[in-house]
């Protein structure tokens, strides 16, 4: 069976092998799951850094516990 790929003018011949279709769909789903997880980790790191700075500007004059170079 020919499955068109949107906007590209190309198509994929999926044949009669339903297993490969299931694997492809499963692979794409797993890829999105990993992407979502990585985005979440990045967001947490960003929030962590900002939280440290916000604590600082709230006059919690702490040491260099952020892993960064601190301030002068």
């Amino acid at each position, binding site marked *: 069976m020919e499955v068109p790929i949107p906007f590209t003018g190309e198509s994929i011949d999926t044949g009669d092998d339903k297993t490969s279709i299931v694997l492809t769909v499963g692979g794409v789903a797993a890829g999105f799951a990993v992407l979502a997880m990585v985005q979440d980790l990045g967001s947490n790191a960003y929030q962590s850094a*900002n939280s440290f700075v916000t604590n600082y500007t709230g006059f919690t004059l702490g040491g260099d516990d952020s892993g960064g170079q601190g301030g*002068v």
Partner: protein
Amino acid sequence: MPRELTHDPTYRNTGDKEPIPVGEFEQDTVKAGSEVTFWSKQVGQDQVLWHGHGREDREYAEAFVGLDVVASGNGTGTAGDEIDGKLVLAITDSDQRRVLASATLDTLQQLRDTLAESRTDRIIEAILGPYAKPGRHLEVRIDADPSSDGAEVDPSASSGNLYYTRVSN
């Protein structure tokens, strides 16, 4: 002994990107072998500030900079002469007497040449640590070459900008 300003990846996604247009520079005279301050900003009591902004890898960098600093003609040289030397970024104390951290960003020649390139090919001024605490000053200085000694900077005829990062409480 002042600390060295270097890229601090911890804060690469932090804060607001603020421009330093060369038009905000003081109209002052450069001196060969001496750092003269042309722009400064005192850190507010509810802020911390960094020189530069964002990441240093070109694909994700945000602060592409360049400067063309020219003379007014009031000092040595004539109006429009290119001023050469080193561009120094510094953090000083509340009296602007003691340098707490500094680094040379690049030469004014390189910063001038980079303006001819497309924006994303220009010199990157990534966020530099340590940050400046409340009461300190961010400063931009010029350490002029002997060929430019005594020239007065004309901010209105110069072009380009640098960046700093601000986080407010």
